């Protein structure tokens, strides 16, 4: 199981690296679909069918919206210079150097905290969170639903669902406000 998951995640990483360095914006969006649909296969291997259904439909809708926006404006990607030639001697461009140093500093900083937290996790498949046995034993009796994930989402953690409905409503109001034509006088 670990080997299969590792191969799929390596494909996702390659797709993500190409998506950020593509010359054409439409190719970059299609490569972003590789990451999303690879995640659906990972969810199915990790025995989570609810998440797979939601992720595949939401990824399709996101790609349709972004392709429509990109096709109606501009498709070109701006070029970055990596090596500059002055008087026959070539230097590395200043912005490119600052970018690389910034990313390396951030990566080392985050790697230190990642190492600290990974020591508390066991191997894949052996980690047990503290509430899992309590939820699995009592969820069917106390909520009455056969699907344990629905029982947890709507009964034990109901306030999270209320907050999510509020966020979706607020996002729709925000989009309609941003795209309004000139207001009334």
């Amino acid at each position, binding site marked *: 199981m670990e080997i299969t998951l590792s191969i799929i995640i390596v494909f996702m990483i390659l797709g993500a690296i190409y998506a950020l360095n593509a010359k054409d914006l439409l190719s970059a969006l299609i490569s972003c679909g590789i990451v999303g649909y690879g995640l659906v296969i990972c969810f199915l291997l990790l025995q989570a*069918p*609810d998440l797979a*259904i*939601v992720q595949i*439909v*939401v990824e*399709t*809708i996101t790609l*349709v*919206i972004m392709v*429509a*926006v990109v096709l*109606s*404006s501009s498709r070109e990607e701006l070029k970055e210079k990596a090596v500059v030639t002055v008087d026959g001697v070539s230097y590395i461009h200043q912005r490119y150097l600052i970018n690389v140093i910034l990313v390396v500093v951030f990566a080392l900083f985050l790697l230190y905290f990642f190492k600290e937290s990974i020591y508390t996790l066991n191997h894949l498949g052996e980690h047990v969170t503290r509430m899992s046995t309590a939820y699995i034993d009592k969820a*069917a009796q106390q*909520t*009455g*639903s*056969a*699907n344990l*994930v*629905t*029982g947890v*989402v*709507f*009964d034990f953690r*109901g*306030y999270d*669902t*209320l907050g999510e*409905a509020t966020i*979706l*409503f607020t*996002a*729709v109001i925000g*989009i*309609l406000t941003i*795209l309004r*034509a000139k207001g009334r006088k």
Partner: protein
Amino acid sequence: MTPIVKKVTQLVVGLIFLYGIYIITHGHLTPGGGFAGGAVIAGSFILLVLAYGSDVLKLRKREEGSSVVESTGIFIFLALAFGALFIGTGIFFTNYLPKGVIGELVSAGTIPLYNIAVGIEVAAALFTIFLALVIYKEEVLK
């Protein structure tokens, strides 16, 4: 769009809508629930608009209809949550209807009703986002 796309859409859109309703109402028995079913129903409407174009379907120039449906969905959700204060025990947002036998269609208290309310709200919200960003942005980009 070509006639093949239009004909296949005509045959398939009703089946996708029915599949979305099945995922919503059986949310407490099989994998799925409110969010997955709402997204599938929004997908069926988006397919219809993409295949036929917005002027053939005679869409009006504002998104009033889908906004009203979304507000209705979240209003039903809040009405059910406040019903727990008045009808059942005196605590806000509990599961107060009788829980039947595990595995029947009518069981699990208020969970199927919450599923339907969230499904309506998510479907209308995603369709409003699609209309505002893809169809009606010409009014902004003129």
